């Protein structure tokens, strides 16, 4: 125990300030993407620890305002993932969501929001590998963009 303590102190003393890491909110549908994330975990696949998962019943449950609100509250990126088209637990939730999201992404990027801040994908319950790859890709994209400041509310 004593040894461990000493080691920790040494590391803390020599370490430079940690590099900036993005904070990403991921809205995952209960039936596919959340189970896909679970499978990635059970399979011990490595992926960046930048995502905070919010489980939703369906990607169709995601109100576009959740995404804008998350950016206002200071997250650096938002990911929404649901079942592949045709596989929705509620038959058509993700198909309606698809129309909503294509409009939202197009509109936000038209206004000048940095492309890549808001991303959408499909991950099924058996795609643990795809989930790990997706999180790696989204984290890399948003790390490159840097901290999100456009919609964030600055406390004064």
């Amino acid at each position, binding site marked *: 125990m004593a040894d461990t303590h000493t080691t920790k102190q040494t590391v803390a003393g020599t370490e430079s300030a940690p590099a900036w890491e993005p904070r990403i909110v991921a809205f995952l549908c209960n039936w596919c993407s959340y189970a896909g994330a679970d499978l990635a975990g059970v399979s011990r696949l490595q992926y960046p620890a930048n995502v905070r998962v919010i489980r939703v019943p369906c990607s169709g449950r995601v109100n576009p*305002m959740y995404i804008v609100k998350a950016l206002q509250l200071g997250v650096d990126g938002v990911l929404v993932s649901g079942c592949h088209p045709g596989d929705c637990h509620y038959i058509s939730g993700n198909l*309606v969501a698809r129309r909503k999201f294509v*409009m939202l992404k197009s509109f*936000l990027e*038209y*206004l000048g929001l940095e492309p890549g801040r808001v991303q959408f*994908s499909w991950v099924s319950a058996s795609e643990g590998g795809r989930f790990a790859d997706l999180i790696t*890709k989204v984290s890399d994209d948003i790390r490159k963009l840097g901290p999100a400041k456009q919609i964030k509310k600055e406390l004064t």
Partner: protein
Amino acid sequence: MHDMETKLRKAAKDLLESGKVETVVGFQNGSLPLRTRPHFVRDASVADTLVWNRFCTNNLAAYLPRLFEKPASVRGQWSPPKIAVAAKGCDARSIIGLIKEHQVPRGSVVIIAMPCQGMVDPRKADAAAGEAVTDCHAGADGAFEVTTVSGRTRTLQRDQVVAEACLGCLHPAPAIADVKVEGPSQAPAAERFARAREFEAMAPAQRWELFLKEIAKCIRCYACRQACPNCYCKSCFIEQSKPNWAGAGDDPSDLLLFHIGRMFHQAGRCVECDACVRACPMHIDLRLFTQKLVKDVEELFGYVPGASLDDMPPLCAFQSDDSESFITHP
């Protein structure tokens, strides 16, 4: 134009006298030059106070959801009132949208179809004349004879006087008509979405800067929302406290949240009547942003809001081959 006014008054009188409707919604002269105000005629004897001219800019559909609302005092069965509306192309499109959203019962609304030549934008006319315009008449060739406050008269071209939305209008004549008033109508605009295309061509950072500059003018009077026929929610997201979508102050981030939210709620519903733009006391260029939504629903889903009663609103429907281009693949 005068001819249309006479026909409208006659149609209103007939509808009221025969008991087919209880109210005719139209316009009366305003107290300022180049202005009219909404007029609710409930008695055939005052039908002659209705006017129809090139200043009937307001979108009258905005009043319908409230007129068709069941009063809180009524219990049990209630039959909605019969209401006729003098509707231009854009008003009729809004009414079609409201019928589809079950805010207006089709059987209770009588659309008096008024073909439209484009309405005068007083702000534009004042700017083009260099001083306040007190009188304005359309000439035979489409130009306008205007008299300014100093008593001078001059001729202004159509595009100097007619509202921007009307210059880009694709549907000047109502798509559905219960009572038809014959009259001249402008040709549908040839060029669509010119401003949105120009804006899209800019760099994202530049677009964001322009967007912020426009939105920073906002004083949060919510006039854009009140004027919009589509904004009939009993409780608007911006005034909800659970969840609290945005703070109540003038923080730039809160202004963004309100405007992004309000505009996105118009996706697939906005008919570009420009009621929000006209209502804005700070002259925010809202059209530049809402035009993108109209462009997207048309290009992605082939949907034109308010064009027909039969097609499903685009965000309530789906196709198996909808665009997937926005999906991130690892």
